[in-house]
């Protein structure tokens, strides 16, 4: 109710007519064309929103279908009979479970490294009195617009640094996103200088000031960028594909790619299984792996959406 009252405050007397004005671009005083437009607008947006989620819902439902139903019924969204066979197979399969663990390891370690390097670089750069600041600033900006390219980067990581076959090859090359670092730096620069000065008077050095004063004040920003980095690690497959040599180290996304895109049936893995195990339902397994790879992100998404959006807004306004 309160919202409605607020919207109707602005009434203007104009040529003897009362024109009511709402808080937004749309007036209450409306023509037929305007109403028709609204109807179509709501309709189209609803359709677009449905298109974004329907494929995901379809996959989730179908991952619970039996293989028989998938083959015999030509088109359906909600299965007649529900079955957990696909998930049972996945959780019995070493390969997929192990890769799930690998993905968690990479995401946790990677995000920790990202945040550490981003913060320790952003904080000194936020100090205007630091000598050499503008040179370092330029160094970062140039790297945003020109890069060595795919192959020199690959050679540096794999042969000059010798990181091929280790997780370091996935964790280090993207340790700092220049763009994110600049936004964090701008945020640090916006923290009142007096706070830090008083900490210095109380005997803090720059390191302890950062840890005790600045970081606690920046938790929302750190959460935002931590999440951006974490989603990036969870979702990436390319680094793992080109740098990792041992398939026991593969993350989930790469396994998923191998199962579906290159259609490599996990034959080796199946032979290790219990001989009494039923022939795995192939089509529903694909869907179940997709679900398993998406679930962690979908679980955190509703809680974090507002941070994500805020992060983009900060970048949009200040970057």
């Amino acid at each position, binding site marked *: 109710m309160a919202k409605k009252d607020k919207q109707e405050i602005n009434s203007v007397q104009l040529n003897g007519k009362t024109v009511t004005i709402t808080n*937004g671009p749309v007036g209450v005083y409306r023509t037929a064309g305007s109403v028709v437009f609204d109807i179509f607008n709501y309709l189209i947006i609803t359709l677009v929103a449905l298109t974004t989620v329907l494929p995901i819902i379809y996959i989730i439902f179908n991952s619970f279908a039996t293989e028989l139903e998938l083959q015999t019924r030509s088109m359906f969204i909600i299965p007649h009979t529900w079955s957990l066979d696909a998930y049972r197979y996945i959780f019995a399969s070493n390969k997929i479970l192990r890769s799930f663990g690998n993905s968690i390891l990479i995401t946790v370690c990677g995000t920790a490294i990202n945040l550490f390097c*981003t913060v320790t*670089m952003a904080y000194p750069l936020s100090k205007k009195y630091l000598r050499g600041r503008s040179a*370092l600033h330029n*160094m970062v900006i140039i790297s945003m617009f020109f890069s060595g*390219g*795919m192959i020199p980067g690959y050679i540096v990581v794999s042969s000059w640094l010798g990181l091929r076959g280790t997780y370091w090859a996935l964790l280090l090359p993207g*340790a700092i996103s220049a763009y994110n670092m600049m936004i964090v730096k701008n945020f640090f620069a916006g923290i009142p200088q007096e706070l830090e000065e008083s900490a210095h008077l109380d005997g803090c050095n720059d*390191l302890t000031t950062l840890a005790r004063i600045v970081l606690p004040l920046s938790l929302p920003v750190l959460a935002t960028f931590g999440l951006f980095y974490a989603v990036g690690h969870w979702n990436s497959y390319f680094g793992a594909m080109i740098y990792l040599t041992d398939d026991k180290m593969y993350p989930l996304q790469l396994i998923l790619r191998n199962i579906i895109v290159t259609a490599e049936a996990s034959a080796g893995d199946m032979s290790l299984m219990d001989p009494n195990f039923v022939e795995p339902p192939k089509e529903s397994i694909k869907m179940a792996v997709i679900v398993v790879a998406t679930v962690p992100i979908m679980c955190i998404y509703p809680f974090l959406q507002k941070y994500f959006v805020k992060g983009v807004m900060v970048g949009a306004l200040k970057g």
Partner: protein
Amino acid sequence: MARAERQAMYGKGKEYWRRLLIDVAKNKWLYIMLIPGVIYFLVFKYLPMWGIIIGFENYAPFLGPLKSEWRGLYWFQRFFATRKWWDYLRNTLVLSFMSIILTFPAPIILALMLNEIRNIHFKKITQTLLYVPHFISIVIVVSITYVIFGADGIIYKLTTQMLGHSIDYLGDPGVFRWMIVGQSIWKETGWGTIIFLAALTNVDTQLYEAAMIDGANRAQRLWHITLPAIRSTVVLMLVLRMGSVLDTGYEHLILMSNSLNRSVSQTLDVFVYQNGIVNGQYSYTTAVGLMKSLVSVIMVVSANKVAHMLGEEGLY
């Protein structure tokens, strides 16, 4: 900072170095903190830039970049001598311009439509749904595509029934680019609206009120107030997009390319990946990659010039 200014601040000669040492000592923790970041940028950003040198050599891994044989512009000549270079460039440009023309306006239109929604709850729910695909990895997007558009997929069966003949969504070269662009639109349109919606929230609502009192209808308000309000954001995004005009998203393309659609899926990026990382022709592909990077820089600079000519702030 001008030299004279710097001298006035820090003195010159010996005095300069003395003051510098004092400053560094005073801020020693700040400089210590910088170490990981600076090493990161030097090793992972600037060392590869220096590594471009192998594009002018016949790089042999066991000799290293300093001792490998110098070949000058050999690899560039070789690329243009293959005559297939035009196929790669054409595939790159067609896909890129298709994706700019189709994917660039999509979030702008959607943002404008969302901006006209008055029901706050409806707006919130749709926005929540629209942002979801951005967080889904490209592997999953492609996997969902394989499942839905593949021979057992629901869309494949549906269109086969409706059209009376089947469409090979995953193999047909004629469909390939539409699939790529469609996936990009599905994944990023909702997320892309955020930046334009942010620009729209900065519009002074009094402008709309004044326009309404002046008798402007909805279309006129859109044209005269809303569009000018997001104009500079649109230009900025377009300048940024022009910088990646030759980037076709190899992580996406190599997932979708197969032996059937090779004639259209081979872009410069895919060429570099295939011949460089897979086949180990490091020098050759570094040279091709360098040309790509140079074009990107030129595109950003000229797009920015055009933006300035249009009276916009642009990127810098």
